[in-house]
């Protein structure tokens, strides 16, 4: 108000010394007034700040986390919070009872995990807010309680009731083949063994052995069936038969067994994956070796040695040997056609046939073996060349040499007779 009054006075000229003194005096007064105003304002601000700060501390919401076992209780203010039951760890449902001293509140409510539940308007309104933050198992849960500090400090009271016995089924799963190496065509027996090594009954047991392995054809017993319910310590197994159809190294995947406990909590377990080797199909392989020591002469006889070796991995059975000579005239063979019941793998059978030379020439002896090689009828052939020579007089040259020697000896003798 004074300032406005001053501003309405005659204007002051600074260049006027008189005005200048007046001006300086007025300016000093305004400056002292400004300082005083600021000081007052600061005092007021400090006062209101202190009052307001006191009011905020009294209504501040805080929280405390607790791990509660079933039956444990938290007391805060007049409130009592008790963990009644873990209904489902899978679904995150816990039953908690909240009561208030004096009976003003007594409520048992199912809590959904991570969902805040307000009582008496919640912590913002002098009530409490309870949130289940974790359910480690079916016997305990982590609980967060939010409250105003004015309610005091929450305290946990352990339950005096004995801990409830665990009701937890655990299934061990084991899958095995009766052999880890097989041949194509071999049957293999697969055993799936499940045992409840837990403390609770396993319900709704299902073995999931999928997908079927393409290297096998499933013969019987597939898919494996396990008892739907296994009490603790009880086991069950399922067996099915497969036939290897494709060679190779196979990684047998884990089989998953799903089950539920008595509280319908779904559980599962896997077997360990493992490798099996499928070798090519086992079959016999007869090798025929025909050996003739050397040429034979017309009118002479020779020996044809026959060797049958089973180079395969299966037994050759019902072996029929049939010989053939080309050209058919000029060479006779006896004892070449034979039959053998079986030749085991890596075994050998030998026999001999007699060759008789009739006319000189080169002949081909062909021996055909028909047999059951484990993969149906098989045929194997072996050939050899036989040379029939003209009858040779081994020492024919002596017919020439001996007479020459005799003549020379005779002439030398005669020469000596006449040598004087």
């Amino acid at each position, binding site marked *: 108000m004074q300032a406005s009054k001053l501003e309405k006075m005659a204007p002051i000229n600074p260049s006027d010394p008189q005005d200048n003194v007046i001006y300086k005096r007025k300016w000093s007064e305004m400056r002292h007034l400004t300082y005083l105003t600021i000081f007052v304002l600061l005092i007021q601000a400090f006062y209101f700040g202190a009052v307001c700060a006191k009011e905020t501390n009294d209504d501040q919401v805080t929280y405390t986390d607790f791990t509660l076992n079933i039956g444990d209780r938290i007391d805060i203010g007049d409130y009592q919070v008790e963990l009644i039951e873990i209904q489902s760890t899978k679904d995150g449902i816990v039953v908690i009872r909240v009561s208030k001293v004096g009976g003003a509140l007594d409520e048992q409510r199912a809590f959904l995990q991570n969902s805040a539940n307000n009582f008496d308007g919640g912590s913002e309104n002098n009530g409490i807010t309870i949130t289940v933050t974790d359910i480690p198992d079916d016997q305990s849960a982590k609980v967060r309680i939010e409250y105003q500090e004015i309610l005091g400090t929450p305290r946990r009271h352990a339950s005096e009731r004995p801990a409830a016995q665990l009701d937890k089924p655990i299934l061990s799963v084991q899958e095995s083949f009766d052999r880890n190496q097989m041949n194509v065509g071999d049957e293999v027996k697969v055993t799936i063994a499940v045992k409840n090594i837990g403390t609770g009954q396993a319900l709704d047991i299902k073995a999931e052995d999928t997908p079927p392995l393409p290297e096998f054809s499933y013969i019987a017993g597939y898919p494996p069936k396990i008892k739907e319910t296994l009490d603790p310590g009880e086991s069950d197994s399922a067996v099915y038969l497969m036939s290897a159809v494709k060679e190779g190294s196979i990684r047998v995947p884990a089989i998953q067994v799903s089950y539920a406990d008595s509280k319908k909590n779904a559980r599962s377990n896997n077997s360990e994956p493992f490798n099996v080797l499928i070798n090519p199909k086992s079959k016999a392989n007869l090798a025929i070796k025909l050996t003739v020591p050397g040429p034979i002469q017309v009118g002479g006889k020779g020996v044809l040695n026959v060797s049958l070796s089973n180079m395969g991995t299966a037994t050759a059975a019902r072996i029929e040997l049939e010989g053939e000579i080309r050209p058919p005239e000029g060479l006779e063979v006896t004892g070449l056609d034979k039959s053998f019941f079986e030749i085991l793998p890596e075994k050998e059978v030998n026999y001999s046939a007699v060759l008789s030379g009739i006319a000189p020439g080169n002949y081909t002896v062909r021996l055909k073996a028909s047999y059951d090689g484990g993969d149906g009828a098989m045929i194997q052939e072996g050939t050899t060349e036989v040379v029939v020579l003209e009858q040779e007089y081994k020492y024919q040259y002596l017919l020439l040499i001996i007479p020459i020697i005799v*003549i020379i000896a*005779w*002439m030398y003798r*005669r*020469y*000596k*007779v*006449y*040598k*004087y």
Partner: protein
Amino acid sequence: MLNVLMLGVGQCGNRILDAINKESFGGGGASRLAKYCMRPKFPSRVETLAVNTAVNDLKELRFTTAKDRLHVPNLHGVGANRNVGKQAFMDNRDTIMGEIEKRGDFDLAFVITSTSGGTGSSFSPLLINELKRQYPSITVITVAVLPFREEGSIYLQNAAFSMRELMEVDAEGIILADNQYMKRYSGDIASAYDKINSMIAQRLLFLIESLDSEMLSVTDLGDFKTVMNGGLRIGTMGFYQADGKNQSIKDAIENSLKPGNLLYPANVSEDAARAMIIIQGSREYLDVDQITKEVEKLSASAGHVFKGIVIKKGYPKVLSIFTMASAPELESIYAQAARGMQDEKEKRSRSRKQLDDAFAHIEDLEEIY
């Protein structure tokens, strides 16, 4: 079978014996190879022995086996000296006769020798004597070869004395062959010798074969001895073989007696004392009538003629053997030998006188040095 011993004494005898051995192999050039391939084929059992004092002469033999060559060691021959030869024989008589004795017993022995050389002319008479002494029953025939007349006075002298000694020994006879007479068969001396040797060999073997054969008309060793004992006991042989142009047996007999086919120059009709005709050939050529007529014709001049006929395939062959009642050619040889001896004696006397005259120049002088 006759057992025949054929002794070739001296160079000439050796070569004739070698020719006989050659004929036993078939003769000709093929015999050179045949001797290495076959054994000698004699008509009878014939043993041969070549005796010589000159080893080189023995080495020249080609068809006589080494065991049938006997070297009488006397340096290198006797140098045509009969006295040296006789001494050599006497010194080695046992050796020589031992070699003969090794060959067994014999019915007939031929001593083939030259009359002119050293060894043959000196050994043969002594050898014959020894044969007759050791084998009294053996028939010994000397085959004596007379020398070429121009070979020199020593050879003629040897021939003269040797023939005389051969005549004196107790042999059954002498078959003469005259080189001088037969050299007409060949131009050069070497060929003549071979031809003569071959002729003598063929005839002797023919004779042996015939004597040892089954004859149509029989002649044997006894007949042969009778023939050789006739006349001077000096005989010779004639031979003829018919050919395809003329197979007449009559002509064959006549030709065998002609001088041209004899080993010694003789006239059968005038000189023959006894004779033997041996005929060989295929039956179709041997006409007995003709043979008989020819033999009768010969008998008219020769006194007695033995005939033998051997049937053997081939053209007629005729061997005629006869002994002579006279040997005019021998007389000429002796005359020539005597002249030669006289000439040599005179020449030696003159030479001696000339030498004595030469020595007379220094008769009273002494050697001065």
